[in-house]
């Protein structure tokens, strides 16, 4: 079990290392416009990349010495040791639908889907009530923002109904 914990930590430190390397790579092949002077646009990214890589190496050392991160506490209940992948996937999946739906189906449908999905993952088991709340929420937000605050939100396929 302990090795599994380290696995996540190592992946985190590894991502940081990759991030630093990515900045290094991007900066090295950057097209520097002529006339950028002695102090061009590459110095600071190089510093940031070096800093990021140094910190990630520090993290690796820290992890191998058994110094693991303390998961953050939350106001909403006890923190558990094992990730609840089912709930996590449901919430993440609902969020993923939003960029796909917002321009194709419109704000109201996209918001209804994400609202319904997240509520369901968080334990709203009464589907009809959940659906009703989701639809009403989306409509109220849509109308108050487009009509009340003149914020432009995509109407999508419901445009024909309006």
């Amino acid at each position, binding site marked *: 079990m302990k090795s599994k914990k380290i696995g996540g930590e190592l992946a985190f430190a590894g991502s940081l290392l990759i991030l630093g390397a990515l900045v290094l790579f991007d900066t090295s092949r950057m097209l520097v416009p002529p006339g950028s*002077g002695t102090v061009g646009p590459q110095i600071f990214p190089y510093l940031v990349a070096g800093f990021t890589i140094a910190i990630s190496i520090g993290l690796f050392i820290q992890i191998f010495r058994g110094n693991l991160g303390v998961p953050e506490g939350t106001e909403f209940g006890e923190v558990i040791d094992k990730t609840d992948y089912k709930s996590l996937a449901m919430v993440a999946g609902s969020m993923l639908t939003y960029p796909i739906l917002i321009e194709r189906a419109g704000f109201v449908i996209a918001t209804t889907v994400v609202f319904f999905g997240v509520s369901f993952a968080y334990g709203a088991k009464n589907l009809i009530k959940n659906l009703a709340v989701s639809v009403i929420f989306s409509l109220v937000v849509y109308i108050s*923002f487009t009509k009340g605050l003149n914020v432009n939100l995509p109407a999508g396929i419901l445009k024909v109904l309006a």
Partner: protein
Amino acid sequence: MSSFNALMDGFAGALTLNNLLFGLLGTILGTLVGVLPGIGPALAIALLLPITYTVSPASALIMFAAIYYGAMYGGSTTSILLNTPGESGSVITALEGHQMAKRGRAGAALATAAIGSFVAGTIATGILAFAAPSLANWAIMVTAADYFALMLIAFTTVGTLLGNSMLRGMASLAVGLTIGLVGSDLQSGAVRLTFGNIHAIDGIETVTVIVSLFALGEALYIAGRAKATGWSLIPMKGKAIMTRQDLKRSWKPWLRGTAIGFPLGVIPAGGSEVPTFLSYAAEKSLSKNKDEFGKGAIEGVAGPEAANNANAAGALVPLLALGLPTSATAAVVLVAFQTYNIQTGPLLFQTNPDVVWTLIASLFIGNTLLLLLNLPLVRVWANLLKIPRPYLFSGITAFALMGAYVANNATFDLWIALGVGVIGFAFRRFGVPITPLIIGLILGPMAELQMRRALQISGGEVSALYATSISKVLYLVLFVVIIGPLVWNFKKKLALKK
């Protein structure tokens, strides 16, 4: 005397019926969102920021000031009734205030928090009005190299003082600095880290990053890593009033809290955690009834709440005079100013005096509106806490995504938001603090600008970065900030071994 006159002009500009209505709306919205569990002041302000864009500049400022104070006050209501500190500055309020509420003294706790916040906010804004211009006058002499040193200090203090591990704070900072690099470099026009995406050329929306880190990160984290336990919501009975006895016990802690909170806001001490804890410790040691602490002592709410508010106002001093944010909330405020086209920093008081003074007057007005509105309406706010948990999270998620989309009406921003949400999840999971990322994201580009300015003047000579006496002092401070905690930890380890 000139500051005073300028402030009066500020009031004249801010006090129109129209502006007052926007102030009222801002207070209501700020408290409404701030009260919701899981939403701290930084997120509340970031979520509501787009609404202020639709109104005129003066109205936007007053609405913004009202949201700012409303969000902070809303957080304390949640702490007291629900024992859920929305941010580190409310931990103490949650501790002591919730105990008061359990003993049926919720009304007194809410009242001392509200009036204490008002007293502290008013005094602190008063000091701000006089301190910020003097600091700005002095800061005009500060060179680019000094600025760069100052920013390094801000990075270090925010990175090391927050969270359990200095290295993890620095990891957070590194990610923030990297996100800040994305887009075209303002000085040379070179394109960085865009990987051929045209949307990325303008850089990544700061507000989107902040909102996604807090809101989407939290929604993912709680779904994946927390077990639902019941909330102990204390129903709000009666009115939010204090007895004569309560007032007698509260007024000194208010003033002491202000005295502790304000100076610690001015220096980059990493937010409101330290001042609220210090104020609590001070009240506990000064109190005649020490045994009451931990069971609901009113001093333990009055002092820290005042310290929290004074601290927030104190953070505005370096923000206005130097352009340096020292906490997540201050960073959001800076983003707001940038979107109103206000360049904070020493020149602000010379180039836009009317704007600054309108803002400071707005802070006074927002604070007053809040007191007038909240004490009578406290039961309405308390009812908001009854929103079922599933709908609360889906609402927060939906608003965060909407905010990300409307910033540019582009799905590109949504993909960024989701990516940042994943970062927020990972940070929480691995105990990495979030504030350093935000500070790095906002201060990174400014630090680069100052560094390049300093080096350009010297023709690339690196010693120019530490040539002035101010910068030498600052690097000494930086050294102490880095070495201090290390020595401290080493000593603690030695003591533990014995």
